[in-house]
């Protein structure tokens, strides 16, 4: 009784609050450094959404975040705090790039799916270990998946400096993928590519899956209360394992799409933390499909506006990073607040 009379409204407010707070913090920082907050925000908005090209750049930047956010959400909703999407992203990117040049003479319709599926499979396999450890022995997945990130990043970094280093290249990079492996551009000359549509479709599919399928139902109930799930006969440990691997598959696919769609090769430092940003996106979006899409676009807008803004103003790019960081902090704070309230009411 008396609990949340307007659940939809309060949920919307809960999602918007971290952004609002981040905007306020950003404004304080801007004002303190002698900038005009409103003016800078106006510039940012127009850099992110003013015109077709800028929107395309924002959506390009949002593309990897859609999938890393999805990878996190799939795990979170079933009660698994998988923070290993970053590692999967690296491995998936590398596998897709290697397949993209090794099988370069294959036709695109075959090559692209094979490279992407390969990327996803490697990402999924990468998390089998943490999944089994969690499901069978109750080993904390935060630790195992976090540590595997370092291994994945350093393993791929070693590979592109050694066995996979492009001939004649001084940079730590593989050879570029074959043209036939590149994901088609949607709005040339912008970099927006087919990967955005694939990612968007997968997030939408997830929305349907989570609401309308038996597996989606089970993973949600397991995430809400594992002991209850076991008592009503839902396989808790196999749900944990499956959701962990699914999360890894999506993380790997995210890397593969990033390699084939935008970078067109694999390089050391392939991801500026997309896997971790995905965690913030899942938390902000409350694991809902719509929430993930909105949060990914906002983060995409921040990074694409930040990149171009400093070309045209003396606003340092760091302000964007401060805002991103603030959003993440408030997203997590909000998350904790929601948990605490949930436990009490």
């Amino acid at each position, binding site marked *: *009784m008396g609990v949340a009379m307007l659940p939809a409204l309060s949920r919307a407010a809960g999602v918007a609050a971290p952004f609002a707070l981040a905007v306020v913090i950003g404004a304080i920082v801007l004002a303190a450094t002698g900038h005009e907050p409103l003016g800078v925000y106006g510039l940012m908005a127009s850099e992110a959404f003013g015109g077709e090209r800028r929107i395309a750049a924002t959506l390009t930047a949002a593309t990897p975040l859609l999938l890393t956010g999805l990878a996190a959400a799939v795990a979170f909703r079933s009660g698994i705090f998988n923070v290993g999407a970053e590692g999967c992203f690296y491995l998936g990117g590398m596998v897709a790039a290697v397949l993209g040049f090794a099988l370069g003479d294959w036709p695109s319709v075959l090559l692209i799916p094979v490279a992407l599926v390969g990327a996803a499979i490697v990402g999924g396999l990468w998390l089998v270990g943490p999944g089994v450890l969690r499901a069978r022995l109750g080993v904390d997945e935060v630790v195992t998946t976090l540590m595997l990130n370092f291994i994945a990043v350093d393993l791929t970094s070693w590979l592109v400096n050694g066995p996979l280093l492009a001939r004649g290249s001084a940079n730590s990079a593989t050879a570029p993928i074959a043209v036939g492996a590149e994901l088609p551009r949607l709005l040339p000359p912008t970099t927006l590519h087919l990967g955005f549509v694939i990612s968007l479709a997968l997030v939408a599919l997830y929305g349907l899956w989570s609401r309308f399928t038996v597996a989606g*139902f089970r993973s949600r109930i397991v995430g809400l209360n594992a002991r209850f799930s076991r008592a009503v*006969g*839902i396989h808790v440990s196999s749900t944990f394992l499956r959701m962990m691997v699914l999360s890894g598959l999506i993380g790997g696919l995210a890397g593969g799409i990033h390699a084939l769609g935008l970078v067109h090769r694999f390089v050391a430092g392939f991801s500026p933390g997309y896997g971790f940003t995905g965690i913030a996106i899942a938390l902000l979006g409350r694991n809902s499909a719509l929430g993930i899409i909105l949060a990914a676009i906002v983060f995409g807008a921040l990074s694409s506006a930040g990149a171009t803004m400093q070309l045209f103003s003396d606003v340092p790019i760091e302000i964007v990073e401060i805002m991103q960081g603030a959003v993440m902090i408030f997203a997590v704070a909000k998350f904790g607040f929601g948990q605490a309230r949930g436990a009490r009411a």
Partner: protein
Amino acid sequence: MMDRARVAIRLGARKVTRRFGPVVANDQIDLAVAPGTIHAIVGGNGAGKSTLMRILQGVDQPDEGSVILDDAPVRLTGPADAFARGIGMVHQEFMLAPNLTLLENLILAREPVGRGGLIDWRVAQAEADRLAALAGVALDWRVKVADAPVHQRQILEILRLLYRGADVLILDEPTAVLAPAQVTELIALMRRLKAEGRTILFISHKLDEVMSVADVITVIRVGRVVATTTPAQTDKAQLAQLMVGEAVAMAKVAPYSRPPGAPLFSARGLVARDGRGLKRLGPIDLDIFAGEIVGIAGVAGNGQDELVASAAGLGAIAEGAISFGGRDFTRAPASRFRAAGISYLSADRSEEGLCLTASISDNFIAGREQESPFSRGGFLRLKMINAGAENALAKLSVRYGRLTDAVRSLSGGNQQRVAIARELERGPRLLVAAQPTRGVDIVGIAFIHEQIAAFRDRGGAVLLVSEELEEILTLSDRIVGLYGGQVTGQLLRSEASVEKVGRLMLGQKAA
């Protein structure tokens, strides 16, 4: 503080009204708790007791009326404010840190600080010993809360209030989780605290306790005070009448005849351990036939939990064998127990019996989501789910708003009905029912008893575990005593009496 003996009302309410939308949870409630007395509040589920307690704690504010402290109206800003004025509360769900020891929990947030800003453990221990002596209890203060039995946690909660200087203790259904012997202990503790001059306000469903310990009894029904009386002026039947406002019909139970054929469920040499690996049960043999209710009588902690877990497929069996319908289930996972037709009503409704944060319909289909007609080809059929849930909940007269509401929003009795709907609608052959009416009001208890008896009459087998002797005697066709993990004997209902079952529970052979 010293003048408090002279005030008439230490804690009370004057014309307190609290509305939630169209629901009036508290309607012009008057309450007067005199200092140094034990005051009981009784009322059914959803009568408005919890709302009133929240208001007295300052957690919630009345729409009209006011809280009275020391004869004067006050406006409490929150639990901390109430505490500063000497009012402390023990909630039904304990608020302790499981990974800390009893001593650490006692001093938490009020640590005695010694030299250099460090905790002075000697002072802490001395204070703990003083409180334990005052309460007349022996506690091992070094044990972690997670490892302490539930009645010790309860005592710790009370001692913590004393440690922090509360002189008014509000206890919300303090005996709901206790075994009969522990209830006696708690009541003795309450009496000692009263003798010390402290004031106790406690909420209970259990009229025996209320009659034995309370000085004054306030009865609440649908948000209103219907009577304020004393044990001398009333009796249990009258209180029950006041609480429910209507005559309570006891479940009619048909005479028992041992069902023919082989047992449906059978345990042989069953041994089970608790979460810490201690042997709690067995070896025991137990048979349950289709069409009978087997009641397990025993004081809490004598192996019932392990028996229930073994029968529901939720606990690993250390030794022995379990068979169901002629097949071996000794090593089967919980899902196979379910699939074979074993249903389970958990004693821990909020953590295991239901998923409180999920919706009513989710709770109804959980575990059956893959069955027809709730899904087809891996896709849920929301219409069928809603229709099935509506139908089943209507049969059990569950009062709810919408199927999408969280189960948390229902009263305790209605929550249990949702669990029963799920467990009985799936057409089980054996129902494992652990404390099926814990925390449910009198009308709800009779209703749940009828459901269980009707299931038996349809040919179902029931394993009933309850700490309520009355429940065991009302429902069971056969009563099996459990003491120290061993079967102490069994009685047919026709030969059972309170005295005989009491002897079984205490480990004495049935005479």
